[in-house]
């Protein structure tokens, strides 16, 4: 088996989700190469070589890879796919954008968001918003896979001593041009990697309440902030806060759901959290069916009290 993992990085370092993806690659077994595509990404490549279990980092460094556009990245992956039995990336918006393009160009299926490796050709993946888990077997010569990061514990960021090899960049496809990128700035832990998440829903009423009530609580817990779709749609917080079937999938040690009813689409994104706390004034709210600790209360009283109690 020979596996290529597509790294996600910010040119300086490798993102956390890649470490979970490498763990999935290790579960498949075999030689693991890490592909770093970017512009001025030498430091990320060096960091990649130190990750436990990486045999070789392959780097493609060119201006037209700066944006991580699907067209150019997929073309490069396809050009360098020879010899690999598996090609993996995290099921992030980057991986989801690039990998189906790779699969189609190789004329193979993509296996989306695997949570378990059963064997080199058989994987488990959630379907129907996580209400069922399918075990699927691929007969394709190359398995193109995205990995749900919550399904795999990350490999160690250090301890490896892989080699670094430069790849020839492909031609610029010129298909898309990045006009602008607005990243949400936050001092908080990243939602996908946070140990504790404080998440708010429509029950908060408006964005002002969301921020004034949840931020002090999140500060005390050193938590990331999340939200239901209703809260995002109503403009309380930016879109990248959304947890759920069609938002981020998270599995922190502690998930605190505040003023969130617990629709199946929301549960799909957080029900694998280790401990779930729900604060909701409606004792019938479905969120209580998955909560380890449920507090039936008005959040406008309970949240400030909780923040104060954490002292």
């Amino acid at each position, binding site marked *: 088996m020979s596996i290529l993992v597509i790294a996600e990085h910010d040119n300086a370092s490798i993102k956390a989700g890649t470490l979970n993806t490498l763990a999935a690659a290790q579960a498949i077994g075999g030689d693991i190469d890490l592909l770093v595509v970017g512009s001025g990404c030498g430091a990320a490549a060096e960091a990649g070589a130190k990750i436990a279990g990486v045999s070789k980092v392959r780097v493609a460094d060119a201006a037209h890879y700066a944006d991580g556009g*699907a067209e150019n990245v997929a073309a490069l992956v396809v050009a360098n796919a020879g010899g690999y039995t598996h090609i993996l990336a995290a099921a*992030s*918006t980057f991986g*989801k*954008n690039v*990998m*189906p*393009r790779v*699969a*189609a160009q190789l*004329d193979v*299926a*993509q296996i*989306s*968001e695997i949570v378990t490796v059963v064997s080199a050709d058989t994987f488990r993946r*959630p*379907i*129907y*918003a996580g*209400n*069922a*888990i399918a*075990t*699927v*077997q*691929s007969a*394709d010569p190359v398995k193109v896979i995205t990995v749900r990061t919550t399904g795999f514990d990350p490999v160690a960021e250090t301890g490896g001593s892989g080699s670094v090899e430069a790849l020839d960049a492909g031609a610029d496809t010129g*298909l*898309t*041009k*990045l*006009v602008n*990128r*607005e*990243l*949400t700035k936050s001092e908080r832990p990243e939602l*996908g990697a946070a140990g*504790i998440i404080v998440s708010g829903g429509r029950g908060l009423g408006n964005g002002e309440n969301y921020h004034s009530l949840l931020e002090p609580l999140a500060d005390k817990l050193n938590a990331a902030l999340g939200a239901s779709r209703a809260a*995002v749609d109503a403009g309380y917080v930016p*879109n*990248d806060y959304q947890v759920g*079937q*069609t938002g*981020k999938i998270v599995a922190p040690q502690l998930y605190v759901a505040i003023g969130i009813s617990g629709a*199946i*689409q929301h549960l799909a994104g957080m*029900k694998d959290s*280790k*401990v779930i*706390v729900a604060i909701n004034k409606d*004792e019938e709210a479905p969120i209580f069916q998955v*909560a*380890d*600790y*449920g*507090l*039936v209360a008005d959040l406008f009283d*309970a949240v400030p*009290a909780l923040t104060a*109690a954490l002292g």
Partner: protein
Amino acid sequence: MKILVPVKRVVDYNVKVRVKADNSGVDIANVKMSMNPFDEIAVEEAVRLKEAGVATEVIAVSCGVAQCQETLRTAMAIGADRGILVQTDEELQPLAVAKLLKTLVEKEGPQLVILGKQAIDDDANQTGQMLAALLNLPQATFASKVAIADGKATVTREIDGGLETLSMSLPAIVTTDLRLNEPRYATLPNIMKAKKKPLETVTPADLGVDVAPRLKTLKVEEPPKRSAGVKVADVAELVAKLKNEAKVI
């Protein structure tokens, strides 16, 4: 310009599906079926572009069983001009759908194909990207804003860290995210009108596409059940439990 909108018939998003006792799949007999929610958003966007005078015709396509006709009628009730059903009882996986759509794009010559980002049954999130790859066209997935002008599309995309805006020449492939628009309700007169709009039926064989599945589903299981825990009386009890019992704070 024409816009092609692929629409999938799926189990309604309000239905909580059950796994069959023999683990062969989920039980979809007698459950409510609807258009994939992301595809409703795609149809709405296409119809708005037509209403704005940017597009001249909106063509809805659905691949699957005969009942997908209903999904196409729904698309036409929102405002699509005509429908194409690629009819088959075979299981269709995203690569097969992308290949079917490719032949229709080559035949109809749309400047824009708007798909949903994800079907809520298979949760694959692949078909649009695969179609773009097969046609060697630019793609803008997870769109929350689409503007068309001077033969170019400017699309804002929802990405993990926030938002980005891409510019690309047409033809292009766009997939919708939830916040692109809010689909209208089809009115009764429009539902009646939709019944008279043209609906053409073809088969994968007519289009010369091999749709044989590449992935075999060996079994389908219930996810591990999470049981409801306890209700705590107040904040003090909650904090105590989190500290002493769960030990997470």
